[in-house]
């Protein structure tokens, strides 16, 4: 609270921001609340056992009781996601650049990349554990194989969508391939690349959890698995809740990244 008197115009502007926020946030929040209430009511009315479906209040209790353990696990998982995400984006971009810059290598690489995309990569998790042990490495590896593809593909699509006559213009002044790549193709691909990066952010969360399922001694995935063997379903749900929060947080982080990287999008033109 401020002790400065609030002017009328600031007040009304605040009010209009509030009402705009309320208009977009109110419906989903209302629905979520309704679901939680209905869930709580259903569990009580039908007296469903808490190790089958715990009531929201049970989940909340578990969340509070295990707060320190859960936060520690969240940090571990968040670290894996962040690290894996960054590696995926870097590798994804590098592969796209190699495919576009070097004809022969590109023609060799592209079918392999597509072929590899059809491997059910979740099934690689046990192999990665076998190779790299229980630490960070197998999780990063798994996130990488799951998340680099949308990055590569979206960047390639962005570069391919450059108008042919723009390339003719560049050729008409004798631009080199490297100049065309870095002055035209790469910046042109950024909006599309950022869309792929947002998908990679979501897939990184999945990669980290699957990696922890396959073999870990820490992290939210480990807690989910451990708690389910103990039939502590409330703790499973509490951990799931935190995984979801992580997913949303990473998605919005990617969206903020997009606004920084693609500032020429019309809606940010006054930046």
């Amino acid at each position: 609270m401020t002790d400065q008197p609030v002017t009328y115009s600031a007040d009304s502007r605040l009010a209009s921001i509030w009402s705009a926020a309320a208009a977009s946030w109110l419906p989903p929040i209302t629905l979520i609340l309704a679901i939680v209430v209905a869930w709580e009511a259903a569990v009580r009315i039908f007296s469903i056992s808490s190790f089958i479906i715990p009531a929201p209040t049970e989940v909340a209790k578990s969340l509070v009781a295990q707060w320190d353990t859960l936060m520690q696990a969240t940090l571990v998982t968040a670290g894996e996601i962040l690290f894996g995400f960054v590696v995926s984006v870097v590798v994804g971009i590098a592969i796209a650049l190699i495919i576009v810059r070097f004809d022969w290598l590109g023609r060799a690489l592209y079918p392999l990349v597509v072929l590899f995309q059809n491997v059910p990569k979740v099934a690689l998790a046990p192999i990665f554990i076998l190779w790299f042990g229980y630490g960070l490495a197998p999780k990063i590896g798994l996130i990488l194989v799951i998340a680099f593809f949308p990055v590569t593909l979206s960047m390639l699509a962005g570069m391919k969508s450059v108008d042919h006559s723009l390339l003719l213009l560049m050729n008409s002044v004798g631009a080199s391939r490297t100049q065309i790549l870095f002055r035209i193709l790469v910046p042109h691909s950024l909006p599309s690349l950022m869309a792929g990066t947002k998908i990679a952010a979501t897939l990184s969360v999945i990669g980290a959890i699957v990696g922890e399922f396959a073999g870990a001694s820490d992290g939210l995935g480990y807690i989910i698995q451990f708690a389910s063997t103990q039939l502590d379903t409330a703790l499973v749900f509490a951990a799931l809740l935190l995984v979801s929060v992580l997913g949303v947080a990473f998605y919005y982080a990617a969206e903020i990244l997009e606004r920084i990287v693609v500032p020429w999008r019309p809606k940010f033109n006054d930046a």
Partner: protein
Amino acid sequence: MSHLAHANARKQTAVQTDELITANGVSVVLGNQLILQNIDLSIPQGSFVSLIGPSGCGKSTLLKVLAGLVTPTSGSVSIAGLSATEAARRRMIGLVFQDANLLPWKNAVDNASMLLSIANRSLSRAELQARGQEMLELVGLGDASNKYPHELSGGMRQRVAIARALALDPAVLLMDEPFGALDAITRDSMGQSLLEIWQRTGKTIVLVTHSIDEAVHLSNHVHVLGIRPGRITESMDIDLPYPRDLSVAEDPEFVKQAVHLRMLLRASHQPGGAS
């Protein structure tokens, strides 16, 4: 404005019969289709030449041949005594397409100097900006230099594209339906601006157009292309004095020439036999 003075001087010293561009027996086969057949063309220094013909007859291909972007299957092109590729390498060719193709992440000045920055790597950023600004002023966009493409109208974007080509100080401006995507009113005023730019800079202009009125309004020579295969079927001079403004369209002489051109164009729509 030094380049303008320079260009004007060049225009004045150029003898009207000086051919800047000549094409001798140019044929182009793409795939296994004969796109252009035996094109002979001579374009005088400082002239404004229009190429007109039905869609798909090979106008764009011909322009690319002149720009050194497509190598003719047979025949040759010379621009001021050089091959088209060599002329392109020496920045003698300015290109403008139907789509302005501005870079959305650069403002108007940076877009206007973008090709120059690649063609001449020795220029400093300040020099590039100064040149870009000068060119924007030439096309009537001097006060829009900090605007981004999405803040400009279609006509303004195309003006930036013309500025970008002129920034190279090319010997010839090759334009492929540059006003094809614009509405009729913008189109008229763009044509008028192009005439003024032509007269101020003395550049040679080759314009591909679909519009009979545009060809008659702007150019002093028109070549009509026929289809399948693409070849020059007719050529005509437009005998109307410059400077021309939009009211030239009401001139009975304009109407006569436009009617004549329409007739030539209609004849060119019939596919011709190979010779």
